[in-house]
């Protein structure tokens, strides 16, 4: 796999998904970056913005298996990971493992915050370990494996917000914004007529190995030590209490309870590498880092009560962070 091939496949995927999805270009690109970086994505947006359609179309374009799980309060972990069922084979009855919907390449966990913490934990464990354990037996999940979870930020009644530790397992958190008037007009044009378009698979039969090659190439992308230092400084600056004695940035000290974990820095670096490759480059630039700071860190910095009371968003803190931390 060469960088040119990567870019070609990447652009092809984007084009196929755009046949169905109108707008959300940034969301689509970042979902693809997270996919090739081996991460999971949390999509946040009000209902009806096309989150489910986006994920479904992406899986179609990738030509890999896709499962959707609608999370409800009564959803059990076994409904997701699967369970042992009694099966009869040649007059002999035996327990067999019935795989749940988690055994797919792309899993859409729709409204993940409506399930109970126990069920959420089952999914999140699968996300991290890439395997599930049922009755003491471990089952490896498919590769590539990606969970795209959605949550509605408005209807919070009867929901179970994801704990911080579990939020940290998402590579990116993407905010799906409402479409612009032009995009809305295009959506209407495409969906209220008689002709519909579907995304065609880009990979063909050798989709799985090709995706693995692309994932391998992404990790080889060059990144200069000064840029790595910049990422380190940025992530370290999210800590309200610093270990090196330096005073934290005022906004961080005022509004943050916890800063980002090392997973945040990993996500920034890998995301920046994916962004560089998608842009046709084999090295990471400062601009790549700044492009992925928001989706990689916005769910990893924990706001305190004052920030919530004053309606301060995580993106505002990150914007100030980038303004204060110099590149060199």
């Amino acid at each position, binding site marked *: 796999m*060469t*960088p040119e091939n990567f870019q070609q496949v990447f652009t092809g995927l984007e084009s196929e998904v755009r046949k169905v999805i109108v707008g959300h270009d940034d969301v689509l690109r970042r979902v693809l970056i997270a996919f090739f970086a081996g991460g999971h994505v949390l999509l946040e947006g009000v209902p009806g913005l096309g989150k489910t359609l986006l994920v479904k179309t992406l899986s179609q374009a990738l030509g890999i298996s896709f499962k959707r799980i609608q999370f409800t309060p009564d959803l059990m972990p076994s409904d997701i990971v699967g369970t042992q069922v009694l099966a009869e084979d040649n007059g002999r009855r035996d327990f067999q493992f019935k795989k749940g919907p988690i055994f797919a390449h792309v899993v859409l966990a729709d409204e993940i915050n409506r399930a109970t913490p126990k069920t959420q934990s089952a999914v999140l464990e699968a996300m991290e370990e890439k395997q599930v354990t049922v009755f003491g037996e471990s089952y490896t999940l498919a590769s590539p494996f990606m969970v795209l979870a959605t949550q509605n930020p408005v209807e919070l009644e009867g929901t179970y917000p994801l704990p911080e530790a579990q939020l940290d397992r998402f590579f990116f958190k993407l905010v799906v914004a409402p479409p612009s008037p032009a995009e809305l007009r295009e959506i209407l044009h495409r969906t209220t007529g008689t002709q519909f378009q579907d995304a065609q698979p880009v990979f063909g039969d050798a989709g799985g190995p090709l995706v693995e090659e692309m994932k391998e190439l992404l990790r*080889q*992308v*060059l*990144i*200069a*030590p*000064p*840029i790595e230092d910049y990422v380190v400084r940025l992530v370290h600056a999210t800590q309200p209490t610093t270990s090196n004695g330096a005073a934290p940035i005022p906004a961080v000290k005022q509004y943050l309870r916890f800063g980002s974990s090392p997973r945040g820095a990993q996500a920034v670096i890998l995301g920046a590498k994916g962004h560089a490759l998608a842009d046709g*480059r*084999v*090295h*990471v*630039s*400062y*601009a790549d880092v700044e492009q992925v700071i928001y989706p990689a860190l916005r769910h990893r910095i924990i706001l305190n009560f004052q920030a919530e009371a004053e309606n301060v968003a995580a993106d505002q803190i990150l914007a100030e962070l980038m303004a204060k931390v110099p590149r*060199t």
Partner: protein
Amino acid sequence: MRAEDRGVLPPEQSISRVIARLRSHALYDVLLLCVPPLLLLLYAFAYVHQLGLIPPFVLFVLTGICLASLAILAVVLYRPKVPSAPLAARLLDEKTEAKDRFVTLATLDPKSSAPLLISRLRLEAGGFARRLSLERDFPYRVKPRFYQSLLASAVAALLLHLLVPAVQSTPLPEGAAHERLRELARQMAARPRLADLGRRLETLVKKLEDQSSTKPEQQKLVQEMRQKVEEQQKKEPEQGDRNILGQTSRTLKNLEQQSGAGQEQSPEKKEGGGGSIQSNLPQDGQGESKQSQGDGGDSKGEMTAESNPRMQQGNSAQGDPKGQSGDKNQQTKGNDKSQQGDPDKQSGPRSNETAGKNEGKSDQPGGKSSASEERPQGAPPSDRLAGDGKGGLKGEHYVTVQLPDDPAGESNGEGKIGTAKGGRSRTNVPASNAPLPPHVPDAPTEVQQMPLEYRGLIR
């Protein structure tokens, strides 16, 4: 394919060229910053040397120290300004819009990276390097610090020209002046053409330091020496010799002024130490006094009093008109216009009048001055004038008195007597500052021996 093979400049070479360019810029900056102060210092040393304030050896040492200090300063300033490879690469990225390709190449360890990606990156960077033009992208601009340095140096040079002559003109203390003269004598002795003059100067210094010689003698010697030096200076063809002679002349002049001032100050100090009696005369020899002006113009007089030589020089024995012993017999109640003389020569309560002009209007008909008519109040004059200090006569060498009706010829002072209008003769007011004779109890009665205030009454 390597970048060089394609005719593209390798990115590492581009970075090196930028570093060299920026290094030269840093050197220019430091030189431009340091050269004006260096030139100023060299000029200052040369200037001071030309004035003869420092010998050549000191000049060389100072110049060496100065050059060494500035060289160290230049190195200290230069080193941080030399850009590192990452910094130069970052600048190169900015100029060529290479999106951090040069930074990555300059800082990345090629061994731990994929060779395919490295070679591709070098190729891309080489393409961007073609956009680079050092003259266009990294032009040299003179920094504002240079102008600040230049301005500061110019101001310092100006101050040097203003302050050094001012310091030179400041009179040295006597001891320091002697030492300076001795030093100059040594310098002169080292020069064949001035050796003789140097020896004379040395001799002069010894005489000046000799306690047995009097001040006027010393002053005369100094004056003579100065004339000789100035004459020699006019004749001297060499600039260096002329400088030494010029300094000698200035030092001698200072010394001369000091001793002259000392002489003038000493009698005044004596006079100013105790009280003095004041006359009601316009004391200045050159002064003109409108003595009194009677009602209806009965008596209008002008008097020019010429008294002792000190008065003629503008030294007055008259002090504060309100002052001494409450003299009501001063002059008139009229306006008193006086021009004061040299204030430096004023001592104590005395005032110096070079052209004192007193204008008075007398209340007395006929223009008769009230000064001669008023009687002293309070204690008898013997008591009032016996004490020393203010108002007393004890310790005084002489007094100046006013004898209203004395003929002018009898007084030591010369009074120009005016003619009164209205047919009446003007009151002659002779003045005298002759020293009082020693008190002799059995001496025959003299005018001066009588209490001054009663003289008019007795007559």
